[in-house]
């Protein structure tokens, strides 16, 4: 199933000659760019979800996180810093003649909090992908989403052979508000992914009204 993207496996696109017309945002849609986060724990299917509805080949980018190390050894001339590389993947969907939507797949781990800050800022909302067999893994992700004040919907990504878990018990397990939408979805299927996204945006609209 979906794995986190590896930068080394991605196609290299180093120069403009490798980019076709479709790789660029269509002229009209440059007026308004919006984003929605697709979040979930490791290997829940974020990359697959984005790939199923993105109009471009999903891309990945990385950020190097630097933090001061606890001990600094000046004598050895060692800079007291450690770095971590965090990758996120994303896709694009031209919504109308005016709007282009970006979907950002976000690693759910707490230690990527800096990157969350970046991605959450200005996001319309978030779709939380949940594996019914690993519900506990989603707690941290939902905590983060709530911490950043994002409205969200839950999409239960069905894997082959997984038993369906009743919505009521899932709501209870995840401690969801009554109006938080819960949909089932197959992240591999374009229509299914789009339906989950539509549910989220309907909900955001209802919240805005």
């Amino acid at each position, binding site marked *: 199933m979906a794995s986190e993207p590896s930068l080394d496996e991605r196609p290299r696109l180093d*120069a*403009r000659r490798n980019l076709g017309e479709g*790789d660029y945002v269509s002229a009209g849609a440059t007026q308004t760019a919006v984003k929605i986060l697709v979040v979930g724990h490791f290997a829940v299917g974020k990359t697959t979800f984005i790939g199923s509805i993105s109009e471009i080949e999903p891309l990945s980018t990385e950020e190097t996180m630097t933090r001061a190390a606890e001990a600094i050894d000046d004598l050895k001339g060692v800079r007291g810093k450690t770095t971590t590389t965090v990758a996120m993947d994303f896709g694009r969907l031209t919504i109308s003649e005016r709007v282009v939507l970006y979907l950002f797949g976000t690693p759910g781990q707490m230690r990527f909090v800096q990157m969350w800050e970046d991605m959450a800022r200005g996001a319309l909302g978030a779709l939380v992908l949940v594996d019914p067999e690993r519900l506990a893994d989603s707690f941290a992700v939902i905590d983060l989403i709530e911490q950043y004040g994002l409205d969200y919907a839950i999409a239960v990504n069905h894997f082959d052979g997984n038993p369906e878990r009743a919505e009521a018990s899932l709501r209870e397990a995840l401690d969801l508000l009554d109006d938080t939408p819960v949909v089932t979805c197959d992240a591999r299927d374009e229509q299914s992914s*789009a339906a989950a996204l539509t549910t989220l945006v309907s909900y955001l609209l209802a919240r805005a009204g």
Partner: protein
Amino acid sequence: MTRPEEWEPESAALVRPYVITKGRGLPDDGDLSLITLVTAAPDQGQRPTRLSPEELRLLDLCSAGYLSVAEIAGHTRLPLGVVRIVLAALKDGGYVLTRPPVARARLADKELLEEVLNGLRAKFG
């Protein structure tokens, strides 16, 4: 032994980020967000030769249309922070135009959400 096809002559890892950025810091947070759209400014006939290879590469990449900052980072495989800094310099020099995303205050804009919803429905039925 590395076979020729495995060479990565343009790998960002070979050049320290601070060399590419010339030691400059990150631009203001509101500037050049992940989804700020960037394109090369028209009238690039007389490009000064002072631009660094990375500046030229980014300028080339966005000379055929708009790309988001995230897409530019994805296509070039440069770290996001590095891309932001180089783009900020290009913007200051008037080489690129940017279109920032809608301001946060306007996000609850029902009209915008309606447009997204209608767009999704039109696209996927």
